[in-house]
């Protein structure tokens, strides 16, 4: 599968030096277009797929949500905790009118690059952030309430659940302010308390904003 990269800014999915960037060819000849770094969508129905890198926004932000025609536009995000190296997971995002062929092309491209692909509906937080942000908020709240020490909360999750790391150490490593921003974006959509940024995250975001 040939692809071309059109980059508008820094990409969280494929940071500078990532091997995937080097594999891109010329846009005119490529089967798939990959738009990175807060891209502006330029529809190209002739391509097998046009892939749009997403941050916290929905794919609908780029495509509009009133399309009736079949679409070859597929959203994607490679999961990354803060400034950790990007994980192998790519969440593809489809809308109701996204074609199976476009999804298949996106899957083939990323799997061909050695990545693991899952498909999510165009909902805020996709799979990972939708599921982990409430858990991280809960863990931070339990820490604030003195349920246990940070060390013991993290150790419990590692030993009791087989997690690679605990929820608080992971949130801290990824950045409490970043956790705040993602949670706040989800809270705006879902409005449920679980997404309201935990106090520690709010404080971190306030301090960051003050410093800036």
């Amino acid at each position: 599968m040939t692809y071309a990269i059109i980059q508008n800014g820094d990409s969280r999915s494929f940071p500078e030096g990532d091997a995937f960037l080097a594999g891109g060819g010329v846009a005119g000849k490529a089967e798939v277009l990959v738009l990175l770094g807060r891209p502006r969508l330029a529809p190209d129905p002739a391509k097998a797929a046009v892939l749009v890198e997403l941050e916290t926004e929905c794919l609908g932000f780029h495509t509009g949500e009133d399309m009736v025609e079949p679409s070859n536009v597929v959203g994607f995000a490679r999961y990354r905790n803060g400034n950790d190296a990007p994980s192998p997971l790519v969440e593809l995002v489809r809308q109701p009118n996204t074609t199976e062929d476009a999804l298949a092309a996106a899957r083939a491209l990323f799997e061909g690059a050695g990545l693991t692909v899952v498909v999510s509906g165009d909902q805020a937080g996709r799979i990972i952030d939708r599921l982990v942000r409430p858990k991280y908020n809960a863990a931070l709240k339990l820490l604030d309430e003195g349920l246990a020490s940070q060390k013991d909360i993290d150790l419990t999750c590692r030993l009791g659940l087989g997690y690679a790391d605990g929820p608080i150490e992971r949130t801290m490593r990824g950045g409490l302010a970043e956790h705040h921003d993602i949670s706040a974006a989800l809270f705006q959509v879902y409005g449920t308390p679980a997404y309201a940024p935990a106090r520690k995250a709010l404080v971190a975001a306030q301090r960051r904003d003050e410093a800036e």
Partner: protein
Amino acid sequence: MSTPIKTVAVCGAGGTMGAGIAIVAARAGFRTLCYDTQAATLERSAKDTQAFFAKSVERGKLSPEARDGILGLMSRTSDLTDLAECDLVIEAVFEDLSVKRGLLTALDEVCRKDAIFASNTSTLSITEIAAGSSRPERVVGLHFCLPAQLMKLIEVSPGILTSKETLAAGLGWCAAAGQTPVLTQDKPGFILNALLVPFNNDAIRAIEAGVATAVDIDKAIKTALGYKMGPLELIDLVGLDTQVRLCEAFYPITLDPRASAPPLLRRMVAAGLIGRKSGRGFYDYSGQAMFGA
């Protein structure tokens, strides 16, 4: 770490959790009394225990002599008065407050005044359980993880009236038994289930909301976060019926909407799709061997 505890009794030792706790105790060198009201379940768990240690020998984790030594430390009884001289009694009976309180009341009559009572509850309050005893200062929470014979973690929780000495003794015994204790307050679900039960419900709600399939949710969580099992695989393993019971234990206390049982979960249980043990849950296990076999 040294501990003055020499003899441990496990109540409910005919059950999966109780049998695992008894293995932990005996393997660490404690004389271990396995108590259960039902002799038949005790017999069954004794066979399972022997099979477990036989496997340990096969895999070279244990010598035949060590195995015999451990099994020699274990005895079984359905007579509560046999627990009279135990230093530590760990209850792993049915997760029902009145049952656990009733057991502690009965143990009060039988056990020495300096014996320590520990509860393996995963959902109930240690303080409320301890209210069944005339010596609540000697009651502490020791929550093991399934399968207890393999998992190192124990959540140690003092009730409101638990003495410092009892808490220290509980922590000390965990360490002496080769386990890893973590200290947590006496709150619903302690650490593990307080985080896990709502998270698992969220995964079910993501399916309900059409975010993704169970397969993709599990794959995403394992790939991105390095979890050994996805949330839906885990629910299938512990049982969807168990997840409902956990929700019913937590939600009325916490009123956390994430702890309430999602409608899809209830419908699947009603349909008999309760996970691995029924052959189908979020995944289909027909034709597959039992987990761990």
